[in-house]
């Protein structure tokens, strides 16, 4: 990254990501070369993410992260030709902090602003990094769990969670179990590690409805068993993973059979889990489908994905005026027209 930089005529796009607990700034060329991707994660001292606390963290680290992104990319603010930011969906206070930084930069540099849908950015950076062209995407993170594919101008959601996201389910269980996350060792990784020593499959509710799934009942059941203290934590982590991952894999398989696509893309924070990767890979192999998983740096929330999607949108005439740059907490990806695909 960085050193082979080619100066393009069009300049560069800087992308700001701040939907949840990460504040990140990425820089991309118009050819999709990622020159910087600086991520600063907010780790709450205890409990879950409080949107206001996370937003305060974002405001505190914003200038430091920006500076690092400029240094790493060796791009000067004046070389930028467009600013992109994640406009939603996400946590209000967090989104607003990123949007404020983006607006200020765009206004100061007098260059256009592009509001990017966070979920679409995950898919686009995944395609860029893996070379996938028209995949079924399983996007699993702390805030989202969905199976999607492109059709006639938009990404369509084939399956999704009816309640909580997969990453959220794992995180809450880990917190209830008293696990402590640290830098480089998030809750998901802690559960994955414990699950490796699990032997006993404890029955948990398996709820697939059509191509959708429900995880909140399962979380309650797992937490109740945990509190009773009759099961080994390792077995519970193992059962939690096996059951929830089987559900998302079944839904993904349904979407593959339904759409007949030949590529599968796995992304989002939970995509780093090796067990989930092996399940999704097995389904891809069974259906003769090419399996792609995104490197963790580009699978978790990151600024590079916003910068790159900003390039795609900007090159197809999509810009967001300051008046229309308000954040959209529940911005579904089907609402977004995607002129840059096909």
């Amino acid at each position, binding site marked *: 990254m960085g050193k082979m930089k080619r100066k393009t005529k069009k300049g560069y796009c800087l992308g700001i990501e701040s939907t949840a607990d990460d504040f990140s700034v990425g820089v991309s060329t118009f050819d999709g070369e990622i020159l910087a991707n600086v991520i600063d994660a907010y780790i709450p001292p205890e409990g879950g993410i409080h*949107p206001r606390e996370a937003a305060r963290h974002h405001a505190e680290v914003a200038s430091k992260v920006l500076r690092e992104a400029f240094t790493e990319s060796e791009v000067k603010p004046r070389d930028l030709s467009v600013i992109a930011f994640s406009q939603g969906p996400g946590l209000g206070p967090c989104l607003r902090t990123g949007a404020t930084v983006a607006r200020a930069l765009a206004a100061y540099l007098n260059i256009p602003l592009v509001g990017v849908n966070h979920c679409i950015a995950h898919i686009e950076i995944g395609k860029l990094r893996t070379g996938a062209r028209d995949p079924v995407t399983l996007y699993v993170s702390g805030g989202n769990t969905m199976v999607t594919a492109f059709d006639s101008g938009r990404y369509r*959601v*084939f399956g999704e969670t009816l309640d909580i996201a997969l990453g959220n389910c794992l995180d809450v269980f880990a917190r209830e179990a008293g696990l402590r996350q640290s830098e480089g060792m998030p809750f998901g990784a802690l559960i994955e590690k414990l699950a490796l020593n699990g032997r006993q499959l404890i029955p948990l509710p398996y709820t697939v*409805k059509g191509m959708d799934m429900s995880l909140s009942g399962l979380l309650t059941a797992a937490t109740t068993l945990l509190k009773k203290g009759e099961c080994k934590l390792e077995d519970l982590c193992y059962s939690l993973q096996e059951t929830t991952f*089987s559900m998302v894999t079944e839904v993904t398989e349904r979407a593959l059979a*339904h759409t007949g696509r030949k590529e599968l893309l796995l992304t989002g924070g939970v995509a780093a889990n090796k067990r989930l990767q092996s*399940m*999704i890979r097995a389904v891809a192999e069974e259906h003769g489908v090419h399996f792609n998983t995104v490197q963790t740096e580009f699978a978790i929330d990151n600024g590079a994905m916003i910068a790159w999607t900003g390039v795609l949108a900007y090159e197809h005439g999509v810009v967001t005026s300051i008046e229309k740059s308000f954040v959209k907490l529940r911005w579904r990806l089907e609402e977004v027209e995607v002129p840059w695909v096909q």
Partner: protein
Amino acid sequence: MGAVKSPVLIKKGAEANLYLADWHGRKAVLKKRVRKKYRPQKLDEQIRTYRTIHEPQLMHEAKKAAVPTPRIFLVDVKNTTIIMEHLEGKQVKQLLSEVSSSARQHLCFKIGRLIARLHEHGLIHGDLTTSNMIMNSEGKVSFVDFGLGDRSEELEARGVDLHLMKRALESTHYRFAESCFKSVIKGYRSVLGAGRLKSVLVKIKEIERRGRYVAERRQEESSA
């Protein structure tokens, strides 16, 4: 299953393989739920056995609700296989984009009526997509694939069932999803009445709000 002759694979679905076969001189469909290597064997067997037993039960109960479903010939739990009648006709998935706008609305109205009858009898289909509905040349619509179905009188379950129908229309028939779902709702109301329809619609709204960002929703609610 000795009486099965010349099975031909007609569809490799996500969870089951479908074969067309001759069963005692009748044209039959064999639905075999196959082992999924990605999940633990114990869980896999539980899921396949459960669905093999429940699906024919629900299909049978659907008939009592006057919702046409294929006749069951044999349930082979050990081999997680169901042998059932082969339905002549076309998938609604195909038909919706082939027929005229008025025929489409009429078809969706009929579907809405069938869903309402299931719900009225405490049945939930669990996978209401247009590929799971077949219409024959006389215009009779049958529902298939009750593998994810359930018995429930709860508003929540009914709401999710209809929400899935809406989602299936949106992802596969986005050009006319809105008008189709409106007709489904009209059909549903014609059986269950405006009052019960309204409570289901309110539930669907709630379900749709639930999907994303739990923390945010709580905050919105507490500050509201």
